């Protein structure tokens, strides 16, 4: 199974966030960059699934030239190659534009002979949180789509939906009806996908080709090995130029929430603090009196 994983270069933040002068972006001077943690998991799922099925993993990003670092980082942990759609400032694009760009690249690769059975995205990007690209991409490709998925597995058999603990497939937004995106050959296989729904674990099966938006938590992304990192340096990266800003509605600005003051109460030191700690645990409902 050949899998495409769409990732986004985002600032690697931990604590306080500041915005740049335009107010549309996080000020990333002094910060490192990474991909969103949902996408880390998507890459890990892709690597495992490709390994299990004898397929390949390609990573794609729409971003500045430096975003090649995120592509190579994915190759370092096991992806085969990358696609960089270069856009000096991707924030000028709305989510529907990004979906359109990715869709166009998928069609273009298909013409060149590279097809993908499964397209993974993160649920949403760590810096903007739009939660749209996966669904819009599926719409563009006319693929079925799942969101909030934590694990996937290639299976034999028919397509269907079900649930453990009585849940139904509420995450399924589209329907598999033949895939007029026409990219992958029909009968590419079936995937079983699991995610956390409102009432428990949801289990889906769906026919490929498909788009799945991944939520972190189902797998532990691996670290790169030294040899992986050395391989990543030489990995092929296909390059595209992003088109002129599209017709979607990009972000006008970001606003930082007000900083909430937190206070720390020291309950005491050593064994003497135990009764006070018990009181607090009872108060917050962790322990019953």
């Amino acid at each position, binding site marked *: 199974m050949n899998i495409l994983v769409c990732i986004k270069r985002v600032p*690697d*933040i*931990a*604590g306080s966030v500041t915005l740049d002068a335009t107010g549309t972006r996080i000020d990333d001077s002094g*910060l*490192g960059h990474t991909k969103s943690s949902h996408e880390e998991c998507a890459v890990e799922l892709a690597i495992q699934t490709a390994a299990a099925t004898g397929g390949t993993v390609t990573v794609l990003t729409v971003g500045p030239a430096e975003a090649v670092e995120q592509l190579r980082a994915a190759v370092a942990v096991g992806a085969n190659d990358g696609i960089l759609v270069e856009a000096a400032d991707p924030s000028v694009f709305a989510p529907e534009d990004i979906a359109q760009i990715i869709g166009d690249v998928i069609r273009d690769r298909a013409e060149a002979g590279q097809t993908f059975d499964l397209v993974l995205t993160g649920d949403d990007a760590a810096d903007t949180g739009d939660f749209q690209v996966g669904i819009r991409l599926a719409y563009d490709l006319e693929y079925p789509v799942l969101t909030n998925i934590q694990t996937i597995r290639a299976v034999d058999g028919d397509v269907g939906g079900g649930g453990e603990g009585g849940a139904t497939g509420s995450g399924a937004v589209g329907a598999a009806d033949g895939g007029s995106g026409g990219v992958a050959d029909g009968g590419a296989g079936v995937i079983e996908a699991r995610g956390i729904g409102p009432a428990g674990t949801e289990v889906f099966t769906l026919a490929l080709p498909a788009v799945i938006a991944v939520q972190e938590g189902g797998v532990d992304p691996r*670290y790169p*090995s*030294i*040899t992986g990192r050395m391989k990543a340096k030489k990995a092929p990266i296909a390059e595209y130029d992003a088109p002129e800003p599209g017709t979607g509605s990009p972000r006008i600005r970001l606003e930082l929430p007000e900083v909430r003051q937190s206070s720390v109460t020291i309950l005491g030191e050593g064994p003497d603090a135990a009764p006070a700690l018990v009181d607090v645990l009872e108060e917050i409902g962790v322990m019953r009196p």
Partner: protein
Amino acid sequence: MASIPAQASVVVIGAGIVGNSLVHHLAELGWTDIVQVDKGPLPNPGGSTGHASNFIFPVDHSREIADLTLDSMAQYKELGVFTESGGFEVARTEERMEELRRRMASARAWGIESSLVTPAEVVEKVPFLDPSVIVGGFWTPTVGVVDSVRAGTMMRESAEAAGALTVSPNTEVTGIDVDNGRITRVHTSRGEIVTDRVFVACGVWSPRIAAMAGAEIPLTPAVHQMISVGPVPQLAERPGEISFPIVRDMDTFCYERQHGSDMEIGSYAHRPILHDPDEIPSIEAAKLSPTEMPFTDEDFDPQLEQAVELMPEVLSNPDVEIRYAINGLLSLTPDGAPILGESPQVAGLWSAAAVWVKEGPGVGRAVAEWMTNGLPEIDVQGADIARFHPHQRTREHVRARTSEAFNKTYGIVHPGEQWASDRNVRLSPMHAREKELGAVFFETGGWERPQWYESNAGLLEEFGDRVMPRPNEWDGRWWSPIINAEHLAMRQRAGLVDLSSFVIFDVAGPAALDAVQRIALAQMDVTIGRVVYTPILDENGGFRSDLTIMRLAHDRFRIVTGAAHGMADVKWFHDRLPASGAQIADLTSSWTTIGLWGPNARDILGGLTSADVSYEGFRFGTARTIEIGSLPVLASRISYVGDLGWELYVPMESGLRLWDVLYEAGRDHGLIPVGLGVYGTTGRIEKGYRAFGAELDSERSVVEVGMSRPKVKSQDFVGRAAHLRHREEEPKAVLCSLTVDDHTSASGQMRYMLGGEPIVSADGDPLIDGHGRNAYVTSAGSAPSLGKHVLMAFLPPAEAVLGNRLQVVYMEEFYPVTVASVDSTPLFDPDNECIRR
């Protein structure tokens, strides 16, 4: 929010290894009411200590750094946080093996056990290293790792337990008040502290904190990349943090250090990545800690391949993952030395910055002693914050020099190696003439100084083998036989030396005599016009400097000292002036100096002036203003090269004119331009003249360097009591001059030592003096007049016997030497007839 003491005897800013060691030692020395603040939390406030790789290799070419490291290791051991692992420095090239032989010289000189080993011997201890990649190694069994955060915590807590210290973490310094040039108050996020002393011990942030007081600590935060990979099965087999020796892969500028089941790989090979102290992220904004900056993969990628070459079995294992990778910040200074001591810019502002974990506790102790007694036990004058000339404190100079130096961290650096960056900052008035003469410029204190002149190459033929050519490339690097030719021509005829780099300052005022009398060992109540060469001692009778003082008037003394250490001399004098009645004026940029020496010097000068420059008319050791054409010239009849002649002082703007006049007049007398190669080495070494920083330092007494005079002046001066005591004691070491008897190496090449080499007995045993120091070469150089290569070294008194046959170890080969002088008696012209003719 907890409040902070309103008053402190000293405020220590920083709770890394340096600040913590400092508060401990201050408390030990009796300080109370110490307040230590750090903007971060404890025990790891987020500075460079927190991410240090924490290993220590004791051997360094610098004695000062080796001393601080050895003291630090002793302290870490006492705290129980030192684990001995042993360490290898491995060589992939023959050129590096030669450098490892130099490491052996330093190990022997500082008395540290080390040995050269074969690849097979390396593999015996590090079985996963590929021996085919290396040609040999340098083994030091005492290498080890420390827990610097734990050590710091213990030291800080000991000061707290003694009731001497209040610690305030999570407290940011927001301002420092200075009144009349003195520290008065520190502002913090938790309140103000009234104090007259502040210790800046906050590593990469130090420039920012010093700037609050209007002062400069010239360092820059720079990236050292490090990754940690694991789990490594071969490492996991053995218990504990470290059981395999640390390996420094010197030719790739990398190290591999076991940390439990992980291997840490650090690099000094990547491009220099400098940051501005103001751009370091806040604790809140930092992903890890503020000094663990985001890793930049592409900078490290080439090192990965080299690391895999060295340890393929371990590092090409696909299950061994890169689990941690940082661009760790550390501090770099323009000359590579730490920045210690009281700022010359603000009284009471002390620095203990640009210090590595391996030196931290030693530095803490040294600076605590310094602030307490005025003197650290270990000589740290090479790290004195007062050493910097103003241009050396600029951001651009720091940027240029640290960028150049970064990749030399594991580099092979020749002792004579010159900086390539930020040159031509200070040019003498005759610089253009010197360039025309093919001067090869060396730099000191920003000054471009001719080391020799290619225009003198014709002299090589005249003097033939007497120039003592050096067939080995290393011995002859940053050197030219022209230096020795210039030397011989000066001794036979005359030489002209550009001495514009002298640091010159006047002490003037009604109390000037009292002031210099109290600072100098020599009698300063001399007749006007006398020039006095004098040691400047510290309270323990060790050397702070040696320099000349001219008495120009009843109330004015002119001090002339070297460019390298002159700025520290200015501060030393400044700090010891009386409250009123004497002032210092720095005239370095006002005066230029030209030296005229050689048997024909009198004829040349006499032809240019109507002044009486005869033997009687211008005595040695006197100075007065004479007229040379329309130039009033302050002529001083002294010599550091041991020949008849004068130092001629004129205002900077007249320097070129004076040079031209002398040069022209000298034509008929065989005058040539002479570089600092003669002035700094050959001229002085055959005369046995001692140099500050080489022979003269705070450890050695006037008696031990053979410079005591028949009488001690009755007036009090700094170090007098100690000096009197030294005169009564048997010396613990004796400074000797030795000549090399045979230069032939095993391969039949003539080899010439450059300095720093160990001196051992005829049987090859180390010679250890009463200070516990192994004998080593303090200065080495040609004595062309004698046709000898001369070495200076402190020997145990029993070995300081004329004619005693010893050996010098150079590149791990033994060469016979003979003790040729056991006091300051010159090897050349022992009766000083040349000077006094």
